[in-house]
């Protein structure tokens, strides 16, 4: 075991003072040290995207980032997406379009899509498809996810 470093992770606006080994992944720190288990780990090598969170406004794969690299930066996870009881338009669209089945990849897709659309609200259909093809889903066959994200994009632009 190596020595631990004291860091603060700011998740959905809340500070978590934790001590982690330098090798601890951000995904593990979010889940195990900060107790936010909505972020899922699907492959630990950056391919499936289930662990996607938003760090400093950018969607990142939290299995490929060390916790110490995210210290002091604003982190957004699935737990912070809804506005109280009210679902985020992206969450609502996934429900309306049956964009989830088992729900394991869902937080990663939601954070990926929200992160990209906040940065690039007018992203074209083809570019959006490219973005969505960077995460894996094993249940839905993707078409309903694509429909949901397109619908939510429209709704998000309308605001």
């Amino acid at each position, binding site marked *: *075991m190596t020595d631990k470093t004291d860091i603060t992770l700011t998740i959905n606006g809340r500070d978590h003072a934790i001590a982690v*080994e330098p*090798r*601890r992944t951000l995904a593990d720190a979010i*889940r195990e040290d900060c107790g*936010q*288990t*909505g*972020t*899922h*780990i*699907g*492959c*630990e*090598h950056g*391919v*499936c995207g*289930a662990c996607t969170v938003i760090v400093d406004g950018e969607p990142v794969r939290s299995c490929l980032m060390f916790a110490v690299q995210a210290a002091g930066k604003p982190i957004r*996870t*699935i*737990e912070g*997406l*809804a506005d109280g009881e009210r*679902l985020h338009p992206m*969450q609502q669209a*996934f*429900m*309306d379009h*049956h964009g*989830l*089945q*088992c*729900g*394991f*990849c*869902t*937080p990663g897709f*939601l954070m990926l899509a929200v992160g990209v659309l906040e940065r690039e609200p007018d992203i074209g259909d083809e570019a959006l*498809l*490219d973005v*969505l*093809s*960077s*995460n*894996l*889903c*094993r*249940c*839905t*066959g*993707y*078409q*309903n*996810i*694509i429909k949901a994200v397109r619908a939510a994009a429209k709704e998000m632009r309308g605001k």
Partner: protein
Amino acid sequence: MTAPAKFVGRSVPRLEDRPLLLGQGRFAADISFPGQWHMRVVRSAVAHGKITSIDATAALKLPGVHAVWTHAHVAHIPRIPFRLTRIEGLMPYQQPVLAEGVVRYVGEPVAVVFAIDPYVAEDAAELVEVSIEPLRATLLATEQPGVFEHELTTEAGVVRKAYGDVEAAFRAAHAVVALELSVGRHSGVPLETRGALARYDESRDILEMHGAAKVPHWNRDSLAQMLGRKRESVQLFEGHVGGGFGIRGELYPEDVLVCAAALKFRKPIKWIEDRREHLIAANHSRDQHHRVRAAIDAQGQILAIEDEFFHDNGAYMRTHAATVPDLAAAMLPGPYRVPAYRATGRIRLTNKTPCGTYRAPGRYESTFVRERLLDAIAAKVGVDKVEIRRRNLIAKSAMPYTLGLETLGTHIVYDSGDYALLLNKALAAADWKNLQEQLRQRRHAGEKVGAGVAMFVEKSGLGPFDTVRIEVTPAGIVEVITGVASIGQGVETVIAQICADALGVDYAGIRVIHGQTDRIDKGMGAFASRVTVMCGEATRLAAVKLRDKALRAAAELMQTDAAKLDIVNGAIVATSGSAGPSMPLAELARSLPGGLSAEDTFESGHMVYPYGVHVAVVRVDAETGGVTIERYCVAYDIGKAVNPKLVEGQIAGGLAQGIGGALLEEFLYDENGEPLSVTFADYLMPTAREVPELAILVLEDAPSPLNLLGLKGAGEGGVNPVGAAIASAIDDALERPGAVTQLPVTPQRLKAIMAAAR
């Protein structure tokens, strides 16, 4: 008595969605208990060899390491038993929970480390020194069987199915069509890896395992037996499950190990698999090689089919025993008249990851074989691929159709179906005639484009029973308690819809409890597209019973006749609709000393058989060997769709997995048995880019006569014929009937096919 359906047949929103969208799911890794230890598995790095020593000294010295186990520590635990299809002679091939002197595949559990946290456990696992003297690895199921152990050979068993006079049919044949075909090794690969957390509660003498899935009751009984405990003292708990597909939830060595360790160390023991482990240790599937031939008459009508196939089951026989080859053999005839039939399935063991079921087990394989055969017959006779199917389809008037074969302990009787009608509807939806013309023109202009069609019969609704208990809690919540399981397919919503209509309440207020062995004593779980059929009908029966009970009790309290009462929106009201006394179910439940509940069981000795047609349109890139699916159309008759949107979701998801198996996914090994597909960078699954938009027709032309709602299962028709349909389309694009003989059709293989043609 029964009111018109308010919920069944409607695409109401899923009850499951909200917590999953909010990040409040409880998947296996999300559960923790104070003081838990973490388990890490030390796996064989050698495909086949003798273990000469295991040295854990360095691992045990690492701070934070509690213990290391090898086979000696678990020698008292029997091997993992079979759940289904136990055929003669398979027992000696069962897998031990830790390797016993010999390793038989890369990834086999050799030792386990228990430590304070997963990082330390992983560090320690790397310090465990395992010395293995390599033996020759068997990698081909088609080679002559060798020695497994002592007098046992690597042919673990043979599945034989037959009816009719095959020899006579071949003697009388106008022509014989013979093919050699294979389907690659791939699997379900759910996005959530496996995981289990066991704890022993000394005060109640209860062993708990969390992270259960698919068949919790079966696994509870097996674990109790293996660990020498009474079944009441072992309880399994299913949380959210991140995809099942046949592979997740079977009883694996790791499940047994966490339970044994929790009992031994009196500590909660948690194990979460990583992706590399998953790809080499969880069940693989599909790997079959077929030598098939058909006897036909001058019109291309099938007189007989004979198939010999080699089923590569990997290193051991796991819980499914002979299930996959058995289903492959039993379902091969499909929707066609096959007057005589013989299948011989040779179950061969190799030094690869052991196999089990994967969505449409055996049928993805044998549909590929049968539909390739139909295309070959069409080419031989000189008619088109649609016409040859029409000539051979079983007629509607022949239903119910007794096939003359058995599988999963049942006689195969196609319960209902109009196969020709479905074919017509599918072709109309795909605009087949115009499509053919467009493709001809594009091919003429130099493009390599083509269309394929494949038909199939699925099986679903496996019994023998399902029991459901419905309780109205004092708070007025309707709880449906069942022994089935949820693997993400929408069980809670569908069961609530059925209960809501039969009982007279809103589906959204119903809580469906599944996968908890302490809530109901018996349960069959979720596999074989059985849940909606078996649990659905059991739910309807229990709800009708509960309704009658509630009305009788209310009539007494309200001093009226039960026939004059109804349940509407969760309240007992007068049938006349007139303003009369009304009483919420909750109030009635509170007023009855014994509460308000009912239980019923649905028993069924036969499966129900949905059927479908897939049409694929592909474009082949002559330069790269890449295949693009331009259009895809699925027509599937499931008798009655409880929630059409969820049925479409099942079909779309299955299609994506079918595309994976047809074009991308394959577990490859080098010549020493070293696995080459150990990350998502080498095991390629379809992304949003590879899965096309698809047209889905969910049809209800042939309700099942075996349950009142007419239900058939929807889980496997999306995947079943995808390999077959895409192969047929690629042939068409290349204008070379029979070009595709092996799945997946990777770019390398397709380029080789095209090069051979030049």
